[in-house]
């Protein structure tokens, strides 16, 4: 794929992460403030809360979308940083390949976890 398209995907992934990770952070780390407003999960890290969310289709789907978007955004960003280090073209290609394969493995593992708990 052309570099310009990969860059556009990087921006698109960033926009998706902005909303989904924002939601995740509010639920997980601003829970006491949300509780004041009468919304959100109390003790969001407790097993009961975590598994209750994991068994909802909304959270299962958004976790997988967030996982894919964040892995792409993060690993493509890392590739761009590495490319600024004046490495040879061959090494750049190898690093891009390693990052792509690592990203796919992490995505498969994370998506499997999300789906497994949802259907269990």
């Amino acid at each position: 794929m052309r570099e310009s398209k990969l860059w556009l995907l990087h921006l698109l992934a960033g926009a998706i992460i902005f909303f989904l990770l924002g939601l995740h952070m509010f639920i997980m780390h601003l829970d006491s403030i949300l509780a004041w407003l009468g919304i959100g999960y109390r003790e969001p890290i407790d097993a009961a809360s975590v598994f209750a969310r994991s068994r909802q289709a909304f959270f299962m789907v958004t976790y997988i979308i967030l996982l894919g978007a964040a892995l792409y955004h993060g690993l493509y960003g890392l590739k761009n940083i590495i490319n600024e280090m004046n490495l040879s073209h061959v090494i750049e290609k190898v690093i891009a390949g390693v990052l792509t394969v690592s990203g796919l493995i992490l995505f498969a593992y994370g998506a499997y976890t999300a789906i497994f708990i949802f259907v269990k």
Partner: protein
Amino acid sequence: MPDEKKLQTVQHKKNRLGIAGWVYGGRYGAERYAYTLHRITGLGILFYFILHIFATGSRIWGEAAWTRTMALFDSPVFKAGEFLVFIAFAYHALNGLRLLFTELGCWMGKPQRPVIPYKNAVRRQRPALVVLMIIALVIIILGGFDFYLLGE
């Protein structure tokens, strides 16, 4: 001709500062340091995120395994680390929003003739940087309250 090409390559490499270029803002001002911080926070979040994928993977083994995994991270050091990730997220998200909009040509005004005194595109988008950093700071303060005062 090959010599000329070689000279161009050498010049090209001389212009690239490598890692040193990350921390030296030069004449570029606040946005250059925002860029440096964007990279550092991005790398930090990526490192945490990969660990997070494995930590949350323990859900597969059931609720007891999840509770045991979370107990491993139940210490002031991990809590401080988690709050650092929260700060990195707030900064990276809000600065990233600015980068996204300016990449798409927003917040920089219409193109103008270069009449002295110049008002370049970087200066035109600077209010957005200030406003977004204030919002990031508010979110970080709210997070701090939740992490350390209300969360227990």
